[in-house]
Every structure is written in C-alpha cells, then in structure tokens.
C-alpha cells in the first residue's frame, strides 16, 4: 500500500505504539483486499458488546490503555454504543454471570482510551453523523449498511479491533465501498407488494441476502410504494447484512445514489427479479412452531422505538403474559426512561412484560440463558434475532410484534 509521510511515521513508531500497531494491522487487512492507500476518517463506531469482545478483547484494550498517553493519542472521534445493560433483568435471565462487573470493566477500559460510550443506537445518527460521501469507520453491520445505503457515506465493515485501529490512525484502508465503482448496484429487485410490518421488511432483506450471499454484491430494490419509513428500511438493511453479509444497497427513488435504476447501476439496469408476498410468507412459515409452547419473546435488534413500546402496551392492556412465557422488549435507556415518564413502561410491566435496556438479547449470552432456563421456542419481530439465535440452540419464529405479543399472552405460538 502507498503510504504518505504521516503514515510512514506512524508505522515507524514516531506517533506512539497504538498508532504503530493500528497502521501495521490495517496494512495487513488492506493488502488482503488490494487497497492501494488509506483514506482519512473523522468518525469511528466501535462495536463493544461484552460477550463479543471476550476477556481477551478487554485485556487488549486495557493493554493499550496502559501505554503512556503520548503513545496512544486518538486521531478520530470514536463512540461505542450499547454501553451497559439492564442489571435487574439480567439477574433474572442469567443469575450465575456477573455481567455488571464485566460490562463496567469494558466501559472503563474504553473510556480510558477516550472512546465515548453511549446508550444510543449509533445508526440512528444521534451520536455521530457523517455526511454524504464522507469516509467513516463504523463497526456494527447495521450501522455500516445504514451509512452506505441511506446516508451515502462510505464505509466497510470495520469490526471491533479494526475500528480501534482507525481510532488511533485516523484512517482506514481504501477498498470496497470507499471506491465509487464498488457502490454501483449489481442486482435488481422489484417488490411485488408492500410489506405491512417490519418483520416482513426484514424477511425481504433476508431473502435477498440469502440469494446474493456476498459482501461484494449490491442490491437495488424498487419498493413500489410511497417512501418506506426509516425503521422499515432499517429492518430490511440489517437483514441484508445478517443473511448475506451485504454492506451497501439502493432503494430506487429513495436512497441518495439511486434516483432511478440507471443511476443505481451506473448504466443500463437489468430487468428486476420479483420478490412476492408468497416468498415472504414462505420464508416466515419455514421457521415453524405454530401451536407449540412458547418460552420467550425477544423484541430487539434494532432496539425498539417509543411507538413500538406503545403498540406493545396497547396489545397488553387488560391482559397478562402467560406464566410460562417471558416477554422481553429491548429499548435504549433513554427510550425506556421516556416510556416510564408517560406510563408505558408501567403498563407493560403490569401485564408481566419487561422493558430491557442496554445490550441486545442476542449479544448477552443468549446461549447460556437458554441453557439456564431450559428454553426452546423463541419468538421475535427481528428476522436477525431469529438468524443468530438458531445458532444458539433456540427454535426461533419471526413474526409481527402483534403476533409475538398475542402469542406471549397465549403461552404458545399463534399462527
């Protein structure tokens, strides 16, 4: 890779050990993807859920923190989302694990480096906001595809250690979606219907993701309806990433690099492939479970908005969650507190549900939780949660929030 004078100095250690490590590490990754050079970045998002980092990840960050301050100067602003977790609920979910201490250790180690830890969900742009065309170094896959597709910023998946390296070097290797030619659409899809719930939007993302199954594929999608709400687009996008490792997409007439088909493709677009309602219904039905005992409902990923919490409270009014079923609704701390101020939290809790803040269900030892409670059947409105929890031994069933909550009341999976 071509290095400028500053980058050469970093590599030689003139700007401290953290920058030297970061640049050397980024060079290895950049060379793997044939990056010619680096691109400066201003904003970094570091993915730091405690389970993912592991003890070794926290130790690594501590070792960086043990360096003298002059050896670990940041060259960008970095935020880590989902700091902390809901201690009260977690003591119920997994009493044998002291996640409070573990989580505090991670937050302290990151804070010592100067990483801003926030409770917000980074891709809702409340913490950091790149502009169209700006290179950035985001970590979470939902955040990356959001920034690429919806904002038009430029980013690859910069996973935990990679974003940490960018924090110290102020740059990332220039390959993938930093290059204009890789951002053009490669595949065309037309929705033959308008999805009615976020789980259906998520299923559309999952179906396209499975078909493409490549980081380097870029779907362009005509949603054939009025501009979809950002939450719907978010569910579709994060499932493109979850099921297909996709980091860039276009929605014709909606996203900034796709005012029309030909602009999305940088030339004449191919005929789009249809995504039908039947395909979505088949996808959702394929998870099975109708009529079976329901152990847990996990409504998370992305974390819930206030309107979704109100929907849950309305569905629970005058009813109660079945005693053999646990209902968990994950929301950012700020939203949870706002829900308490208007009585929504109280209504959900009165009906036997729990609003949980902090790290998502799948990111807080969900496998151990299943083993502890001997849980089997899980429902969720997030097609991504279904994907991940299938690997943790659950038998998930994705469904709308309404279907999930009604099933939680019934104690079994309702069709």
């Amino acid at each position, binding site marked *: 890779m071509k290095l400028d004078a500053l980058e050469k100095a970093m590599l030689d250690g003139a700007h401290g050990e953290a920058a030297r490590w970061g640049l050397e590490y980024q060079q*290895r990754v950049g060379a793997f993807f044939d990056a010619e050079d680096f691109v400066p970045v201003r904003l970094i998002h570091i993915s730091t859920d405690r389970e993912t980092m592991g003890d070794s990840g926290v130790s690594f960050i501590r070792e960086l923190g043990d360096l003298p301050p002059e050896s670990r100067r940041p060259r960008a602003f970095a935020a880590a989302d989902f700091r902390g977790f809901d201690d009260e609920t977690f003591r119920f979910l997994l009493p044998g694990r002291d996640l409070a201490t573990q989580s505090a250790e991670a937050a302290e180690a990151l804070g010592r480096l100067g990483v801003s830890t926030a409770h917000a969900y980074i891709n809702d742009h409340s913490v950091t906001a790149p502009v169209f065309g700006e290179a950035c170094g985001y970590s979470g896959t939902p955040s990356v595809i959001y920034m690429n597709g919806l904002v038009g910023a430029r980013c690859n998946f910069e996973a935990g250690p990679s974003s940490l390296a960018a924090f110290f070097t102020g740059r990332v290797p220039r390959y993938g979606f930093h290059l204009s030619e890789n951002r053009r659409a490669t595949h065309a899809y037309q929705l033959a219907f308008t999805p009615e719930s976020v789980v259906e939007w998520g299923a559309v993302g999952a179906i396209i993701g499975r078909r493409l*199954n490549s980081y380097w594929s870029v779907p362009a999608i005509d949603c054939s309806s009025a501009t979809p709400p950002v939450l719907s687009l978010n569910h579709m996008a994060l499932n493109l990433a979850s099921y297909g490792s996709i980091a860039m997409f276009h929605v014709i007439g909606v996203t900034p690099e796709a005012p029309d088909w030909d602009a999305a493709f940088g030339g004449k677009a191919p005929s789009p492939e249809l995504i039908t309602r039947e395909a979505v219904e088949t996808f959702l039905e394929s998870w099975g479970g109708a009529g079976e005992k329901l152990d847990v409902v996990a409504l998370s990923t992305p974390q819930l908005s206030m309107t979704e919490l109100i929907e849950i409270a309305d569905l629970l009014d005058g009813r109660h969650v079945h005693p053999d079923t646990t209902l968990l609704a994950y929301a950012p701390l700020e939203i949870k507190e706002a829900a308490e101020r208007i009585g929504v939290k109280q209504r959900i809790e009165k009906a036997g549900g729990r609003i949980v803040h902090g790290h998502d269900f799948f990111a807080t030892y969900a*496998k151990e939780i299943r083993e502890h409670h001997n849980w089997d059947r899980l429902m969720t409105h997030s097609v991504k949660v279904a994907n991940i929890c299938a*690997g943790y031994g659950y038998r998930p069933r994705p469904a709308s929030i309404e279907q999930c909550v009604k099933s939680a009341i019934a104690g079994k999976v309702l069709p």
Partner: protein
Amino acid sequence: MSASTSDIVLRGHVGIGPSVRGVVLAASDDFSARYDLDRDRGVVSRRAHKLYGESYVGKILVLNAAKGGVASAWMLRDMVLAGKAPLALLLNNANPVMAQGAAFADLPFIDRFDVDVTQALRSGDTVFVDPALGLVRIEARGD
C-alpha cells in the same frame, strides 16, 4: 490415507497469517463465529449447518462464504487464546470482518481460490496452507 496427491495445488489470493499443515474439515455452508459455533465446546452448533455437532478445533476449516456481523473479528482471537480455534480458515469469499479477525488473531486465512475450495477439499484431507503465497497443497487424501 490414500496415495499421495502432493502435485495438487489450489491457488487463492494472498492471505493472512503463518503457514500450517493439518487435516481438513469441509462443507459447502457459510461461516460466522457468532452464528454457527459453540465456542466454549469448540463445535458447530447451528442445527441447519452441515457440520452440526462436529469439532473444528485444530482443523483446517473449509467453508463457502463469510457471513454475519462484526463479532467474528473479536471472537477469532479469543478462540485462538482459549485453544478452541481452527488451525486455519479457508473460504471461497471473505468479508472484511473475517479478514480483520484473522489478522487480529494471526490465524492462517486464504480466500478467492481459482476453484470452489469446498469442492476441491474433503474432510480428512491433509493439506499445507501457505497464506503468504495464497497456496494450499493437498498432501494426502482422506478416506
């Protein structure tokens, strides 16, 4: 093991990590450390995965494409330090997360072969993996 096949060499893109020799565990499925593995036991835990229940520890793990989110980047190093990692990882197609994870863990890793690596290699094969050259040499076929 069957007769020597030392003249068969698979060519991929220049990879990451040191060269190693080991026994293959292969399937045409995709790979994510978070989505597919019981990292404590060192086995594949996704029921729908063709390697469900198999131990990948110390094996040359051969799969199709990297999938899923950012977790693998932290997890691969954690698995190496815990002695619960594959010896090397060979994929048809990587994503940045897997390359970043391999570089962080110094785990031998190659992708972009001139053939479908999940078809060219079979579980039980003994291979030599040379990431610096992007080469995999089949030294012996498994049963």
